[in-house]
């Protein structure tokens, strides 16, 4: 995973709540067996509408998505994160994320930032009024900045932040705990089921 420290970019205001992962990447895209090439599937159904915000020329190259509450609900498909990243998004801001989507994002270095609805409203207004407005998502300082006056801090637990800042591979970290895992396995009860017969 690539490390995430701070990112500055133009934004896409997505005034929708309950953006489920079926909207982010429809199921027929999930037949691919790679982690890349999902950019054209991102919001595929909504993008057929020329008025959809992502289709506006002034939003081309934007890298921060600012969405309504309950972003990433539904299916656990990590392809939703890959699609956002493949398209060029580095961070998503929303008042509330679905748990699995948020976990998937952090594993891939897509920063999900929870800000209150009032802050999201302010950002929507700012980037709609001037599409060249840039938003900075600063993981080091744990704050979002926009223009001269907007500065809002956000929470992210220390461990998740450290993993993101360092771009750490979770599997390697866990494999350092081999002794603990082996000790746990040695003590598991015999009645627990096995899928293979010995």
């Amino acid at each position, binding site marked *: 995973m690539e490390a995430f420290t701070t990112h500055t970019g133009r934004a896409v205001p997505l*005034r*929708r*709540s*309950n953006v*489920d992962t*079926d*909207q982010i990447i*429809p*199921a*027929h895209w*999930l*037949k*691919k*067996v*790679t*982690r890349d090439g999902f950019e054209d599937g991102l919001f595929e*159904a909504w993008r057929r509408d020329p008025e959809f915000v992502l289709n506006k020329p002034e939003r081309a190259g934007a890298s921060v998505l600012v969405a*309504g*509450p*309950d972003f990433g*609900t*539904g*299916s*656990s*498909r*990590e*392809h939703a*994160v890959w699609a956002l990243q493949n398209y060029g998004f580095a961070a998503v801001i929303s008042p*509330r*994320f*679905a*748990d*699995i989507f948020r*976990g*998937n994002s952090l*594993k*891939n270095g897509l920063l999900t930032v929870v800000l209150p*609805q009032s802050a999201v409203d302010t950002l929507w207004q700012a980037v709609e009024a001037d599409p060249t407005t840039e938003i900075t998502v600063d993981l080091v300082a744990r704050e979002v900045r926009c223009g001269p006056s907007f500065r809002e801090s956000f929470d992210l*637990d*220390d*461990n998740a932040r450290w993993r993101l800042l360092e771009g750490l591979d*979770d*599997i390697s970290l*866990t*494999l350092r*705990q081999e002794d*603990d*895992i082996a000790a*746990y*396995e040695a003590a*598991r*009860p*015999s*009645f*627990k*089921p*096995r*899928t*293979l017969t*010995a």
Partner: protein
Amino acid sequence: MGRTLAEKVWDDHVVRRAEGEPDLLYIDLHLLHEVTSPQAFDGLRKGGRTVRRTDLTIATEDHNTPTLDIDKPIADPVSRTQLETLRKNCADFGVRLHPLGDDEQGVVHVVGPQLGLTQPGMTVVCGDSHTSTHGAFGALAFGIGTSQVEHVLATQTLPMAPFRTMAVTVTGELPDAVTAKDLILAIIARIGTGGGQGYVIEYRGEAIEKLSMESRMTICNMSIEAGARAGMIAPDETTFAYLQGRDHAPDGADREAAVDYWRTLRTDDDAVFDHEVVIDAAELAPFVTWGTNPGQGAPLSEVVPDPGSFDDPSERFAAEKALEYMGLTAGQPLRDIAVDTVFVGSCTNGRIEDLRAAAAVIEGRSVADGVRMLVVPGSVRVSLQAVAEGLDRVFTAAGAEWRHAGCSMCLGMNPDQLAPGERSASTSNRNFEGRQGKGGRTHLVSPQVAAATAVTGHLASPADLETTDAAQPVGV
């Protein structure tokens, strides 16, 4: 202070606990399917890693599999490649696989319980959000992403952030016409699609205790639609009886030891939940969705709501968008909504009891003109059982299509899809825009409502059929 069921199961799986780090949890069972695993196996290969516990891992094919002509090569080359990739991965890494054509193939969340692999007090994961289904056994079961699938394959563990606990207590008795599906749809409408975020929900109370295992699975299955990390029901005699004699359930001395342990898996009387919701079962009625998320539902007897009636601006806007997409008008009675397709199946309602319930409603009746009804068993075992009971013939005699097992139209990854603008009554779990096919419109319903709807051609409950039958002249 006492502990909740979820806390007990969690604590029993902590491999490592350290200040400032998420707990490292041991995973007892890892279920795999073709859609969310290829990139994980790829990662193992790149890292030179193996599957740590092939004996705690099992795979099946479900999302992409066709429900017709399963003996012929799969027409869609991309679907075919994905299934072939799973077969190669399982062969290369030594993972047990039940492929299309095998008697144990089916929707992954139907397969685990019927094999007896899902048991109380276990941790169960799968790269699929409906893994919450297995919580019906008192297991801590949750959906994970592909990076986590790779993590579990390599280490049989997962670092997990702490959760909060929520009790959903359903008091009293469910009225006869009300099913587990109606109950869970009503619960989601009450707490909202984000209301469960960060929580493990424990469903409890008299109405829950009286449910069969299959109904409990329907309830826990849709916990994710309320945003919950997992849903659980304390194991009891119903659970133990269901497991008895299943392929992988313990027997002999092991069963005694297991049942002794399982009996400890109850929330202590003095345990405190972070949040509690109480629902009176007696007030419930058949429930359907009108919108584009599972929280947008109402009793079948009501009308399509007016978006203006929602106080919250974001909910109001979501309702406006939903009515526009669904082609509905505020104030329209839900019973007047005509459908083109009825789908009975999925990990929510594709088990034998669901098929029996739908068959009982449609037996001796006919699917309305112009309506297509698909019945897709959740697994080959369910299908074989249904055929042995003659249910397939009940459905086909009524004019429904009897199909092969799989996820099918729940998510339309295979050819079973809605056409643009087409409307369905579906026993599945998600009414998202385009979920069942580009431009398709979905109403989530119980198997009984699905069958009654197929007969009348518009959203209906079995009770509506009795009225219609009585009103029809006899012998003309």
